[in-house]
């Protein structure tokens, strides 16, 4: 079985190449593998008919107990034979039908993949493996339906099929998963009805599985995709409608019938919806003029009836189900292929224009005739037996059965009329006027339909054969209990025969009064708008409009709105969390004393920030920001954080310098709050809530003494283990040096990125001379010694940093400051005179130093960044110092690089 699956799949994958090589004969060549499969399955018939089953299994996801398990029992075998048998014929047929299509290779591929999927679906013993194939059929059918992809109608139909069957598939998945949960197995063969029936999950399982099956088998109200799928090339329709796709849902219903069936819910739903679908399909079918569409609607009818028959769960009903399934596959496949041939030959499928084709296409005519009789349920066709048993099965059910029987008589009468229209109207009578003269099609095109049609006749006439070999085991697989199977053409005058006779009579009436029936059907116009495609289009449109509205909520193109939302959500989360935990910030443990300089620093910082927030003008903005930074630095000093204060100072100043350089070319920044009063209030509210959240957060965090001993450990170990007095620096370059490594990387990338953005490496437009504000002789003379002092200071800071305030960062920033002064005074050119190394190289060297310092530890088979120390001439030297040098170089190079590019090209 696996080999046959794999064979057909590989066959499909190779199809485009085979087609490219063999072209005309590709169809025949590609049909070999399905044919071989068919033969293999046929050879299994004796074994299976004895009641055995074949199992094959391949582990797939052992963690979830999912296997690629296959099982060949009666039901699977029946389907497998239909799939491979009809499939072989279709492959051959399509080679002729689409002979000149330039994407025929692809078509073969899809068809064969579809065949694989379908075959896999019926063979799978694992629920999930079955689902895998189930979805694969959806995708493959999508590809087939949209085969004429440049037609919008095809694309629409394909999408419709995909969404409906795909959506149903998801429901099915849920159902299957629940089934798996309820029964604790993924194997069909191990499902027992006791495991499920009565389980709390049973209703859900049933509903979900039914949704999946109904969408796939086009039951009302999911039937609309099926007729639209007619946009596919005819071979596809033939295959889809006869043996595959639409039967997948039916297959699963049948497969799960022993497990899920038996209850009244199951029966009621299946019978009601099945009957409704059948009637609807029949009424819709009779309305059509297009042969293909008419056939499509009759398929809907049949599917409804099949569903209904499963619902009956009676001996006759289940036998009828199997019979009907086989009969329908035969005649529908034949009819579609024949219709394709007619279309091919005459260029039309409109029954109003077709007539008297029999003389012109006798072989096709015979095929259509036989198939149509089977369709109409005339004896001795297989379709007749199916219909007899159906009535018998329904009647067996009692009062509900009678009601449904009436519906069925009506439905089948309409089917009879449709069959008449298809054969009698088209082939008999005098030839109509057609655009081009029809002729018999090539053998490859008539052999398929003829074989199927004759098969339908043969099976009916010699019905003991299928009874023994196929039907029996299939019925046993569907039924919960043993069922006696006995097929017959004539069982005396039974209610079923009477019903049959009624059907035929009514059907004949309908055929002759076809126009009147059609008119009647059309008069119920409102129903068609309801059940038709319009609803689908409207639904889709609404959906997209709704999606658009949802998207617009988040895609408004307003940065401020994004900001406000984000801030608000954060604040609300925090405040809500606080409320939930009923925290009271500060429960009165000792906090550090208030220091006046600290307060002053805070006030300055706030004043500056407020100035920056509200004032107009560039300089006011920059000055306020600077003042704010200054205040913050003062605050840091007051809480004994000199290193932080130094860094803050340097950074703030460089910020101011960079800002000034950018702002000098920019228009004046207006005072804030220019977005209107409403917006201002809203923004202010957002800001205040956020500020409140931040304050409360911090207060809550400090509402108890600081746990942990990190601070003490650092203080104690800094000097003896890190060989540095400046604990902050030792943390930076040793204890937590990896943080610092990341940090200088940020600085380096920021510098590179900023300069890339501003166009690094572009030659300056004029001879660089520095900024005009600095073009004074006094400045030019004074700047060099000042810069020299700064460089010296920076080196001193770097050197002392491990023991005194300073270190790589601050040193690097100070050096960069000196460089800044030189560059604004003398222009970018000075850099080349000052340092022959380009800033990015300095950055690279700095990073290399830092990484290299870390690698020493690794080289000594210790951790990355482990400090190694030597003391030549009493001077303690160690890798942390090298690391600090790396920090220095990176920061220096980066700021230099940023500046060079930020200052502009003219300077």
């Amino acid at each position: 079985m696996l080999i046959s699956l794999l064979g057909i799949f590989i066959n499909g994958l190779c199809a485009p190449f085979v087609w490219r090589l063999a072209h005309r004969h590709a169809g025949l060549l590609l049909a070999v593998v399905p044919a071989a499969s068919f033969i293999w399955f046929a050879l299994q018939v004796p074994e299976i008919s004895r009641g055995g089953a074949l199992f094959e299994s391949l582990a797939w996801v052992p963690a979830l107990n999912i296997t690629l398990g296959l099982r060949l029992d009666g039901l699977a075998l029946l389907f497998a034979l239909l799939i491979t048998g009809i499939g072989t014929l279709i492959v051959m047929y399509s080679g002729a039908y689409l002979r000149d299509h330039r994407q025929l290779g692809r078509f073969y591929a899809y068809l064969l993949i579809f065949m694989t999927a379908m075959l896999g679906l019926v063979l799978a013993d694992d629920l999930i493996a079955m689902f895998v194939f189930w979805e694969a059929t959806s995708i493959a059918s999508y590809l087939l339906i949209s085969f004429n992809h440049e037609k919008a109608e095809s694309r629409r139909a394909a999408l419709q099929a995909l969404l409906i069957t795909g959506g149903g598939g998801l429901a099915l998945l849920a159902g299957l998963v629940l089934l798996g949960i309820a029964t604790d197995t993924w194997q069909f063969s191990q499902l027992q009805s006791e495991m499920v029936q009565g389980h709390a999950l049973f209703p859900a399982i049933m509903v979900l599985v039914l949704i999946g099956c109904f969408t796939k088998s086009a039951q009302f109200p999911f039937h609309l995709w099926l007729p639209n799928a007619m946009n596919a090339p005819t071979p596809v329709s033939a295959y889809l409608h006869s043996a595959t796709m639409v039967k997948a849902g039916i297959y699963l219903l049948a497969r799960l019938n022993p497990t899920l069936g038996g209850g009244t819910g199951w029966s009621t739903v299946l019978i009601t919806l099945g009957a409704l679908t059948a009637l609807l399909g029949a009424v819709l079918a009779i309305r059509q003029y297009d042969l293909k569409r008419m056939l499509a609607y009759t398929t809907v009818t049949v599917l409804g009836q099949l569903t209904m028959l499963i619902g009956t769960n009676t001996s006759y009903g289940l036998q009828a189900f199997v019979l009907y399934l086989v009969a329908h596959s035969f005649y529908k496949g034949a009819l579609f292929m024949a219709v394709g041939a007619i279309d091919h030959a005459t260029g039309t499928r409109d029954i109003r224009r077709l007539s008297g084709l029999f003389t012109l296409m006798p072989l096709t005519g015979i095929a259509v005739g036989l198939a149509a009789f089977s369709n109409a349920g005339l004896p001795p066709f297989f379709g007749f037996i199916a219909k007899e048993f159906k009535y018998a099965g329904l009647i067996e059910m009692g009062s509900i059965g009678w009601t449904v029987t009436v519906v069925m008589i009506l439905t089948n009468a309409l089917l009879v009329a449709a069959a008449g229209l298809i054969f009698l109207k088209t082939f008999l009578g005098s030839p109509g006027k057609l655009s081009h003269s029809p002729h018999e099609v090539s053998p490859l095109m008539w052999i398929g339909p003829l074989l199927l049609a004759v098969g339908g006749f043969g099976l009916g006439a010699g019905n003991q054969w299928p009874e023994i070999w196929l039907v029996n085991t299939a019925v046993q697989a569907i039924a919960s209990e043993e069922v006696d199977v006995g097929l017959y053409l004539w069982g005396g005058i039974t209610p079923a025969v009477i019903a049959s006779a009624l059907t035929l009579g009514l059907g004949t009436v309908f055929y002759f009064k076809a126009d009147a029936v059609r008119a009647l059907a059309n008069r119920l116009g409102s129903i068609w708008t309801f059940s038709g495609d319009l609803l689908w289009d409207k639904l889709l449109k609404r959906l997209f409009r709704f999606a658009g509205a949802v998207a617009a909520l988040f895609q408004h193109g307003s940065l401020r709105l994004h900001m406000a939302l984000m801030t608000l959500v954060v604040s609300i989360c925090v405040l809500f969390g606080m409320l939930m935990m009923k925290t009271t910030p500060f429960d009165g443990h000792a906090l550090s004393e208030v220091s006046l300089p600290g307060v002053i620093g805070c006030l300055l910082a706030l004043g500056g920030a407020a100035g920056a927030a509200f004032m107009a003008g560039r300089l006011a903005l920059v000055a306020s920001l600077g003042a704010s930074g200054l205040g913050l630095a003062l605050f840091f000093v007051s809480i004994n954080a000199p290193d932080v204060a130094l860094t803050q100072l340097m950074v703030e100043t460089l910020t101011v310098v960079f800002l000034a350089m950018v702002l000098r070319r920019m228009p004046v920044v207006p005072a804030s709050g220019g977005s209107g009063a409403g917006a201002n209030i809203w923004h202010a509210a957002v800001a205040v809530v956020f500020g409140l959240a931040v304050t409360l957060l911090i207060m809550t965090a400090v509402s108890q003494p600081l746990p942990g001993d990190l601070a003490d450990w650092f203080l104690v170990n800094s000097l003896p283990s890190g060989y540095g007095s400046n604990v902050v620096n030792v943390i930076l370059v040793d204890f937590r040096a990896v943080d610092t490594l990341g940090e200088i990387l940020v600085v380096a990338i920021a510098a590179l990125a900023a300069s890339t953005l501003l166009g690094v490496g572009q030659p300056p437009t004029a001879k660089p001379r520095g900024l005009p504000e600095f073009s004074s002789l006094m400045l030019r003379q004074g700047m060099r010694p000042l810069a020299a002092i700064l460089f010296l200071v920076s080196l001193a800071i770097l050197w002392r940093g491990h023991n005194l305030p300073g270190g790589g960062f601050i040193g690097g920033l100070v050096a960069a400051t000196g460089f800044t002064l030189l560059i604004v005074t003398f222009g970018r050119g000075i850099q080349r005179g000052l340092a022959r190394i380009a800033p990015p190289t300095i950055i690279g060297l700095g990073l290399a130093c830092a990484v290299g310092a870390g690698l020493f530890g690794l080289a000594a088979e210790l951790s990355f960044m482990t400090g190694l120390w030597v003391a030549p001439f009493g001077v303690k030297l160690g890798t942390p110092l090298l690391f600090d040098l790396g920090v220095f170089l990176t920061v220096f190079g980066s700021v230099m690089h940023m500046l060079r590019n930020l200052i502009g090209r003219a300077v």
Partner: protein
Amino acid sequence: MVYLHLLLATALAMLLAQASPLYWMLAFAALYPLFRLGGLVNGACRLYAMRIEAGTTFICWFTYQVFSASMNVAKMVLSPHRQPESAVVRVPLQTRDKRLVTLIGCLLTLTPGTLALDYWSRTGEMFVHILDTRSIESATGSIAEIERRLMRWIQPLGGGR
């Protein structure tokens, strides 16, 4: 001249070792007679010593200037109802040496009440903003004074043009 610098470096090294400016001053006080004496036999030593003298004098004078100027500004700021009469005056400088000009500019700016606004090297003129002055002469005079004293300090070295 080189060994004088070396000598100074020695002093500085001492200072580094002792780490106190007090010792630095003591060292200088001790070294100074040596320079003076050395000046009798060596021209460079004499120049060096003279430079130190002139320098010390200049620094003292300048410090005094700064303080007296500060007092003037203080009076100016503290007395109510008095508005200063500012002016920007043009002061032609004797020297054209860029470093000296810069030094002069810095020094006069350091003195409250005067502020080097600009220097035009083409004409050798410095534009000085003066906080409160009645006459151009007094202003230019005080600036010329700075230049003169500075030159006296620098000249022995052979600086300037």
